[in-house]
């Protein structure tokens, strides 16, 4: 068969999101790759310039819908720095606990989709069942399973319900057993290793050069994790290890994410202990009046509503489940942000596709792209 360009997408069960992976193949072998993004571009950054800070939180849920709360934290931390507001400590620990639960939820979602792609059908449903436990916990204090809108500038919307930490501890114990079962289904399977070992190699120097972050760079042996390197929230007050693997292939990324889930359980248990011992407010005191009213009237003219609020620039970097996410917010003293710039880890990970897809077969693309853990909402914004 001569060379031809094949479209994998935009409607394709493998792609996990709306994008088009154009692949130039010669028979079975991949010669070149050209990802086409933008099918899910909703103009979130532009819309944010027209919205109140607390209203932008709604949009952040929808950037990465699998890990919505992590993106809320990203935006809210940057917004708080831009507006010179400090959240109370309990809010910070609740955010950290939420982010670790979100990490486990996102990784379970990754696991379910990844094994489904290589043909294991049952763990997809086991993963969904277990992720439902986490979503039930979320629902108990944020009120929603997917679009949470839980964070506000200055803290969170409400405190945890009573008895939450007991239920959460039970969920963590259950999940610990489940992770062992997931490993048995995959690592003990010869076929899994035949499909995944040695695939999609992206060695550490290439990762650094191409800006790849997250489990992909940790699977290449480089120990880069923003929670340890530049601690935010309260990560410097909890003990955990960074999951690193050698090999830089699909199996290594699998191992890294499974280990990250276990470390998240460790962090969570420390969070529960702290939260039990330290009751307190979850919203900062002395918030400016206009921040407390999310439905303040919006002027029709122009983008700068002069409110004489001190200007500022806010930057936050978060170790999102997919990698390093950045937010840069310019505040020109108005109710709306002047510019919201978000950077998604999957954006850079997909841009490096040429380096880890070329030379493999077409049938290898689903395991490799599955190990990259694609979430298009945050790429396109």
């Amino acid at each position, binding site marked *: 068969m001569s060379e031809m360009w094949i479209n994998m997408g935009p409607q394709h069960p493998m792609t996990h999101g709306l994008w088009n992976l154009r692949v130039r193949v010669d028979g079975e072998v991949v010669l070149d790759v050209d990802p086409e993004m933008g099918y899910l571009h909703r*103009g979130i950054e532009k819309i944010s310039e027209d919205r109140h800070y607390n209203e932008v939180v709604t949009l952040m849920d929808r950037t990465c819908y699998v890990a919505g709360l992590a993106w809320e934290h990203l935006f809210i931390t940057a917004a708080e*720095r831009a507006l010179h507001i400090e959240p109370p400590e309990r809010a910070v620990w609740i955010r950290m606990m939420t982010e670790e639960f979100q990490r486990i939820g996102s990784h379970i979602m990754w696991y379910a989709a990844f094994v489904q792609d290589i043909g294991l059908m049952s763990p997809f449903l086991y993963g969904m069942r277990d992720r439902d436990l986490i979503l039930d916990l979320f629902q108990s204090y944020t009120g929603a399973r997917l679009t949470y809108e839980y964070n506000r500038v200055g803290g969170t919307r409400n405190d945890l319900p009573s008895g939450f930490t007991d239920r959460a501890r039970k969920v963590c114990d259950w999940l610990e057993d489940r992770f062992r079962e997931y490993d048995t289904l995959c690592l003990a399977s010869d076929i899994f290793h035949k499909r995944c070992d040695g695939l999609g190699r992206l060695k550490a120097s290439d990762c650094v*050069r191409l800006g790849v972050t997250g489990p992909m760079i940790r699977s290449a042996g480089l120990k880069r994790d923003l929670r340890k390197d530049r601690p935010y929230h309260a990560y410097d007050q909890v003990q955990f290890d960074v999951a690193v693997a050698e090999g830089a292939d699909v199996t290594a990324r699998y191992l890294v994410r499974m280990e990250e889930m276990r470390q998240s359980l460790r962090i969570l248990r420390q969070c529960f202990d702290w939260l039990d011992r330290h009751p307190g407010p979850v919203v900062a005191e002395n918030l400016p009046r206009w921040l407390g009213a999310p439905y303040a009237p919006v002027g029709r003219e122009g983008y700068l509503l002069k409110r004489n609020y001190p200007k500022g620039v806010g930057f936050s970097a978060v170790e999102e489940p997919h990698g390093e996410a*950045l937010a840069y917010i310019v505040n020109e003293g108005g109710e709306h942000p002047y510019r919201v710039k978000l950077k998604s880890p999957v954006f850079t990970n997909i841009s490096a596709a040429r380096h880890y897809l070329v030379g493999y077969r077409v049938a290898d693309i689903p395991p490799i792209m599955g190990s990259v853990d694609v979430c298009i909402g945050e790429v396109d*914004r």
Partner: protein
Amino acid sequence: MDEKAATERLRSQLSTRFPAGILAVEPFPGTLGRVRFDPALALDLFRELRDVHGFTHLGMVAGIDWVQEREVVYTLWSDERRVYLFLSTLLPADRARIESATAIWPSADWHERETWELVDIQFDHHPDLRHLLLPTGYQFHPLLRSFKLHEPEDLEVKVRNV
């Protein structure tokens, strides 16, 4: 404290290396600082920062429209020093061109494509400057201040079908 001292040290090092072109090195809480530089200095500054100061990772490239001028913001990360550094440059709105950073950091590729299509900043010597998130042939640059979200009804939008 430590952050301010580090920023000061960086300022002195960069000013010695580039007598002209470094407009300011300001403190930026949580990072090593923000370097305001002249656009003509771009590639040399990038190379210096990557090779000498160890900023091997380009986090993001952001474009901001200030109506009269446009700002390009680079975010760098150093693994050894574990710290972020911001670079910022102002370009005149009628001639918004700057050298592409892909020669130094290949990861700038998609970031610069997105910055061009949203804020209309040309990156010279970029290998493949075309639309990324917007449809091919889209003739607007949406994140400019002149692109208003609430359009008058008589505006005609032409988008080429691919």
